[in-house]
């Protein structure tokens, strides 16, 4: 099951650039939360702070607290531990090109030392079913490489890979922006299905997508969280004029 995330006074820097400023945001468990805002507003940096990926950049720095469930991920956990609890899917599918579909999906488990063949088979099937890809690839699991799949299938395989390690939170950074409308619909349907089991945070430039899949939406601007509310409120009657100007195209 997913767990809630409590972000308190989060600040992030790239060198001297203060990219996130005093972010306070409660992400509800087992819901999809969308983050919107113009390019460079800090939304991707924000999600990278939720699984301690931001600090992989040598000039990056973070202060503040991110609690996932009962754990402060910057005080009480190692980055490896955090990333096991928090899966991530990126804008472009990133399969391991030399690995089969099967090995792609269970690569995280193998890295963590799991070798039990029966258990791996079960996890691969479960993860591919959850990502709605099983029926399309079940006969070619070990024959085809992950890179031989279509873009939409690759992205669902990457979702399966993220799910295979049984995370509680799934971060998605523009997961459908490189996909055609049919593949996009499949990813959106998937988000809708998965949020009953995982807490999902999705960064998107597609506001209709945010409106379709998320219960909560946050609007970022210049490194600050301008407004965070129910998606319905944000897209029908936002409280802040900057949010309204952005979503109605009067901004910029």
């Amino acid at each position: 099951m997913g767990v809630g995330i409590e972000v308190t006074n989060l600040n992030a820097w790239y060198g001297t650039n203060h990219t996130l400023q005093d972010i306070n945001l409660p992400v509800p468990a087992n819901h999809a939360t969308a983050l919107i805002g113009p390019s460079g507003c800090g939304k991707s940096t924000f999600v990278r702070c939720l699984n301690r990926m931001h600090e992989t950049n040598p000039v990056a720095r973070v202060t503040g607290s991110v609690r996932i469930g009962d754990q402060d991920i910057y005080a009480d956990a190692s980055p490896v531990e955090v990333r096991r609890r928090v899966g991530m899917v990126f804008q472009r599918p990133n399969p391991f090109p030399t690995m089969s579909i099967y090995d792609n999906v269970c690569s995280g488990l193998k890295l963590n030392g799991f070798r039990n063949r029966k258990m791996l088979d079960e996890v691969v099937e479960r993860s591919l079913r959850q990502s709605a890809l099983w029926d399309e690839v079940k006969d070619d699991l070990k024959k085809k490489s992950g890179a031989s799949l279509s873009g939409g299938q690759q992205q669902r395989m990457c979702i399966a890979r993220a799910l295979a390690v049984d995370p509680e939170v799934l971060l998605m950074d523009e997961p459908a922006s490189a996909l055609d409308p049919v593949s996009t619909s499949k990813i959106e349907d998937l988000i809708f299905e998965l949020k009953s089991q995982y807490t999902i945070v999705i960064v998107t430039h597609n506001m209709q997508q945010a409106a379709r899949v998320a219960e909560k939406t946050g609007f970022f601007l210049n490194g600050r969280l301008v407004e965070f509310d129910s998606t319905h409120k944000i897209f029908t009657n936002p409280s802040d004029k900057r949010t309204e100007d952005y979503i109605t195209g009067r901004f910029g």
Partner: protein
Amino acid sequence: MTRIRFHRSLDDLKEKLLVMAGLAEQAIQRAIEAYRVRDLSICDLVSRSEMAINRLEREIDQAALDLLAMEQPMAIDLRFILAVIKINADLERVGDGAKSISDRVRTMDNMAIADLPVDIPRMASLASNMVRKALQAFIEADAEMAQSVLSLDDAVDSMNRAAHVSLANVMATQCHLAPQALNALMVCRSLERVADHATNIAEDVIFWVKGADVRHKGSVDADVAGSLEAPVSRHAN
């Protein structure tokens, strides 16, 4: 500023609705003038206006539908287009009301002029003022002005109820004036509906500007409270 073409289309939509509003307002004034002076040539003008209003109603609905389908509007833009669609329907009904009054005038053409205990010009003036004020609120995106229209409806309702009582009394006591009284009653009913449409327009302006749904306040509250009495809608069907 981005989406320049879309926002220009919204301006065009508003302009088109205002043309229709002008026609509807003029139609109701002409219909009352036709009733007052019993002039069938004015009734012809009302009929022509009503046809133009109907044509504009279709054009505005189509333009609004295109914007919804093609532009995926959000927030205040979405509320604006929804308000336009509803105001469009109300203005068309105002045009129908004018036509209905002019039809009464045609029916009364051969009847003797009777001195009836009802002030139709005053009632018409109140209803027209409501329409004008609601449209002014729409032009200026002024929710406070729209709010002030809502309270005016009670006066028209009250005049309509009083007209029912006094005209029913005429029909009962002065049978030879029953046809005129019946027609006057129907004119009052049309004016009361025009005032209802002005109320609806004002409510749509509030929804557009504030995002607040102020419709059916009394009746919904009564429903929630589990009132045994059926709530009475203030609006025309």
